[in-house]
């Protein structure tokens, strides 16, 4: 079965990729399986300078999900290009670079640099990290700011630009419309929902940063709803994510209106998650009587 998919100018072998922040820069997971298996690889967020992130603990488990507040720890865009990207060159799998920042200038600089790296085939603009005060969340909740930022970044990038939306908003449709109008080639949705867990023993938030981003199967219904809503008003490609753990979940996201999907938290429970999902996709298609990816596209939205 042909699983390949066109995604804002990229051609992917299949619609499944690891989600940013849950797969590092690929090296660790390459010990488990061949990264050529993947539809694409979304690497960890890059910022202008190195960031050391939030104090620990940075993760906590919740019912069918987890909280994280890594805080965009990364060695900075230059180091990423120099030290991390070369490893990924060997694979015949497009790399999508996640772009973060605290100011418009920082986003623009990071995007410009990454867009020039030959290994990078597309950018994912992270305007939705809830875990850093200056992590871009203001851009992710205000359509005006999102429009401007997308526009500026689009101007300096020669590669397809996916804007990653935050679910922590009253109106996801207006956010999607704003970035589409600003020239986004596609959308990634959803990032994490802001949550908190309290340690009854210490009487303090379990995550040192107090709040963290909620991900995993717990949030899947919210992701499906938001993708469905956005698909009804927009035709640009959507990379869907939020709680995917099985190939059947992938079908659900495609039916809701996603063109491809990203798998985050599931990699922690099962390091083979992406590979297993890809391997099982044909069987899931068969089980529910689908013969091609196109048959699923936006079925529910129309």
């Amino acid at each position, binding site marked *: 079965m042909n699983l390949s998919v066109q995604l804002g100018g990229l051609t992917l072998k299949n619609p499944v990729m690891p989600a940013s*922040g*849950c*797969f*590092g820069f690929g*090296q*660790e*997971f390459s*010990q*488990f399986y061949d990264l050529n298996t993947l539809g694409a690889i979304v690497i*960890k967020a890059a910022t202008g300078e190195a960031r*050391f*992130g939030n104090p*620990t*603990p*940075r*993760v*906590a*488990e919740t*019912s*069918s*999900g*987890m909280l*994280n507040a*890594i805080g965009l*720890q990364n*060695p900075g865009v230059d180091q990423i290009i120099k030290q991390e990207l070369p490893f990924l060159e060997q694979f015949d799998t497009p790399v999508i670079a996640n772009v973060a920042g605290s100011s418009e200038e920082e986003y623009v600089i990071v995007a410009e640099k990454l867009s020039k790296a030959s290994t990078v085939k597309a950018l994912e603009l992270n305007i939705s990290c809830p875990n850093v005060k200056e992590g871009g969340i203001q851009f992710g909740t205000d359509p005006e700011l999102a429009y401007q930022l997308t526009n500026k970044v689009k101007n300096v990038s020669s590669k397809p630009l996916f804007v990653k939306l935050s679910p922590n908003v009253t109106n996801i449709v207006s956010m999607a419309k704003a970035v589409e109008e600003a020239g986004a080639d596609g959308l990634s949705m959803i990032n994490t929902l802001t949550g908190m867990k309290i340690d009854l023993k210490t009487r303090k938030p379990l995550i040192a940063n107090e709040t963290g981003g909620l991900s*995993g*199967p717990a949030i899947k219904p919210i992701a499906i709803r938001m993708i469905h809503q956005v698909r009804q008003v927009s035709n640009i490609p959507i990379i869907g994510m939020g709680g995917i*753990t099985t190939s059947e979940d992938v079908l659900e996201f495609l039916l809701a209106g996603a063109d491809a999907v990203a798998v985050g*938290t*599931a*990699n*922690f*429970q*099962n*390091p*083979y998650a992406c590979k297993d999902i890809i391997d099982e996709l044909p069987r899931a298609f068969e089980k529910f009587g689908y013969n091609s990816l196109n048959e699923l596209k936006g079925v529910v939205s129309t």
Partner: protein
Amino acid sequence: MFRKEMKIESNRLIALDTYEMVLEGDLVQYIKNPGHFIHIQIGEGTAHMLRRPISIADYDKQINQLTIIYKVFGEGTDWLARQLPGGQINVLGPLGNGFDLSGIQGQTVIVIGGGVGVPPLYNLVKQLNSQFNDVTAILGYQSKVSIFYEKEFKDLTQTYIATDDGTYGYDGLVTDVIRELRFSYDHYFSCGPTGMLKAVQHQLSDIDGYISIEERMGCGVGACFACVCQADNDKGYVKICQDGPVFHAKEVTL
């Protein structure tokens, strides 16, 4: 590192809320040295998205078995405690870098453990013994009822037990015992709660030491940056799951 189903050979209560579980499987063949940990999947389905890191307390490549010792703390370890011999659990491992014992031969060594930090020291002492070191073990527990593996350690080496509440052995902290012994050692190895490790790091700052540290983990393999610790190196940090959990005492800032 591998993800494998391992068969539960036994699972028994050995102290208050504390269990010893013996697991069998090929994964054992890949253990390099004491101090590695395994990352255990909890329950069926997706209710528990995070695995639980537990140190390898002992292992035997000949019979393909490893032992873990864990304390029931929350939902995950509670689930573990309810698993029956004959069943299987899904394990990711062996993870991290254990205690590097190359060159540690015929020396005086002190190993210091606290609570659920004691387990990885058990196989460590075995291997230190096999390299002809003179080993002293100091093990701290909360209370008499929490003590486990006293006999096992005493069968291997000279062992001092301390309890926080004085209900057994020395009444006080492991650092008090170290102070009283006032011997000098070539090396120390320690694992236990952060507070204890800090105190030991401080007290034995002039001795070559190695500590095994804990942090809440996501991936367990170095990809998610959940488990970093400030360190005196180029990057300014280490990832406990990948670079550790064992570090040179001088390298990390607790």
